[in-house]
């Protein structure tokens, strides 16, 4: 069985951690749409600093056969593309001034199973969730396979919907795909180190 890990690095988490305790200012993206889809990146600006949440792709053959393309989240402190986002009018101020109480990571594990045997497993961080004083905002992969990001807002964690996108893999007569999910506070991940 192949097991692939595509999770945030400690370096990424160390850029997110200082945002806790600050206040939300805005989010933006070069091509972020009013429906909250943003290819490649979303800039998060807070009173404690700004980061860019990036979805980049890589090719891998872990499923067997030809390479397919998969998405990986990482964090950058380069927010120079904010200039373009501003020029394009793609700056969104929902939930401005709310306190950032916590940052959490949504970690999904997708498995392909044939006759009870696991063929491969992909463990991947699919979303970064900002728990604000009056709401939650998640910046999530809009696909396991492309650079698309999707922003979702809700009044609380229990109301937050982040699709698992496991239906991007097609089941057939012999192979089925399953997905499981963990919601992990950033502090826990940082204390645990790489899993």
């Amino acid at each position, binding site marked *: 069985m192949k097991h692939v890990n595509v999770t945030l690095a400690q370096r990424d988490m160390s850029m997110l951690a200082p945002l806790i305790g600050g206040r939300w200012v805005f989010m933006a993206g070069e091509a972020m749409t009013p429906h909250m*889809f943003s290819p*490649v990146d979303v800039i998060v600006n807070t009173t404690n600093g700004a980061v860019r949440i990036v979805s980049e792709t890589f090719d891998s053959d872990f499923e*067997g056969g030809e390479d397919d393309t998969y998405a990986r989240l990482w964090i950058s402190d380069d927010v120079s593309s904010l200039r373009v986002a501003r020029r394009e009018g793609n700056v969104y101020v929902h939930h401005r001034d709310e306190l950032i109480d916590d940052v959490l990571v949504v970690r999904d594990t997708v498995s392909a199973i044939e006759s009870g045997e696991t063929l491969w497993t992909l463990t991947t961080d699919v979303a970064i969730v900002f728990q604000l004083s009056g709401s939650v905002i998640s910046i999530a992969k809009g696909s396991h396979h492309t650079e698309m990001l999707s922003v979702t807002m809700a009044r609380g964690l229990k109301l937050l919907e982040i699709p698992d996108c496991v239906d991007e893999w097609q089941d057939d007569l012999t192979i089925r795909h399953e997905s499981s999910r963990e919601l992990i506070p950033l502090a826990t991940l940082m204390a645990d180190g790489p899993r």
Partner: protein
Amino acid sequence: MGGHSGGGFAAGSPRSPQAFERNASALLRRFPVNQQGLFGVPGRGSTRRLYSDDPAATARYFYDTLGRGGALRRIDRGYIRTFDDGTHVTYRPVSGSDGSPAIQITVRNPNSPLARYQKIHFMKGSDQ
């Protein structure tokens, strides 16, 4: 559940889900899909292959037809077109894996005739 990711979709907009479905209908008139909504023939693994005399032109046609009206952004080695519901089409004239042109189609509408996700490599030749 109360999560949301924006408001309703303006049906007349070129970025609307309806516009994408019109694009898909136009493409399907020339390139049929199988029962699973997949173009071409199976490659090795989960990707698809679509054979033609001019793979570069065929890939470009796919991208131009399916992506028409979608919001454009450059991505690594290619382009992405996004529609209001999050449906998107990526196009890489030279893919990182084998150098062939490649298209990824990710569809949000569960009633679309196209599969939820597919990656197609455009190859020279025939699948016969």
